[in-house]
């Protein structure tokens, strides 16, 4: 399956500045791993050492959040568009494990 993978600006340096690439795979995970094989900086940017997707990234296949499908095992149809979005979060509370704050 050939899938268009669109990435946010934080991941573009790992794809030589590109906004989107075409990658191959039968599942979301395979598509990401295929992109990682072709672009060495991409894998560490999207995967934890455990192989799980980094927590601050959200993936949408079509209009669906893949977390509510089958996660990285979600099958991808040929010609699909997979969109990676950065989580947007924050707040006045201090980061985990730290005292004080703003």
């Amino acid at each position, binding site marked *: 399956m050939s899938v268009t993978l669109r990435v*946010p*600006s934080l991941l573009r340096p790992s794809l030589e500045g590109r906004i989107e690439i075409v990658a191959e795979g039968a599942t979301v995970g395979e598509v990401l791993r295929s992109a990682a094989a072709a672009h060495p900086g991409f894998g560490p940017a999207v995967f934890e050492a455990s192989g799980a997707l980094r927590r601050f990234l*959200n993936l949408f296949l079509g209009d669906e959040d893949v977390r509510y499908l089958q996660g990285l095992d979600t099958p991808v149809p040929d010609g699909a568009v997979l*969109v990676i979005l950065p989580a947007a979060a*924050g*707040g*006045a509370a*201090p980061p985990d494990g*730290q005292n004080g704050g703003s």
Partner: protein
Amino acid sequence: MEFPAEIRRAMVAHAAFCLPDEACGLLAADAAGRLRMAYCLSNSTPSPTAFTLDPAEHFRALRHAEAQGWYLAGVFHSHPGGPAFPSATDVAQAYEPEWLYVVVGLQAPAAPEVRAFWIRDGVVAEEAVREVAGEAAEALR
């Protein structure tokens, strides 16, 4: 940067509506970089001291912005009891180097403060904003 008055009003109104919790949303700009829309979105971790933009709403805002020929240019959130300045958490979780990070401070509720920042590699740089009456600005919820 020019900041359309309607967008400022939308962010401040959303911040007031969401009290006592933090409010959040996204900003869209047109191809010329002019801010055109404040998407007032849900905080999926409602709290007076934290926000997480609802991912599905984020995705719908992206779709809407792109359908207009715009792009997502930034994120805003409120500090209900604090200053309009990024907290350590905000800085630690500012992943998009090309986004403008806007904070609405409601420390003095009668005089809300709105300030904008670039956050890159943990470094916060304020962007001077000038409020203008504008052609921008609708607010969606």
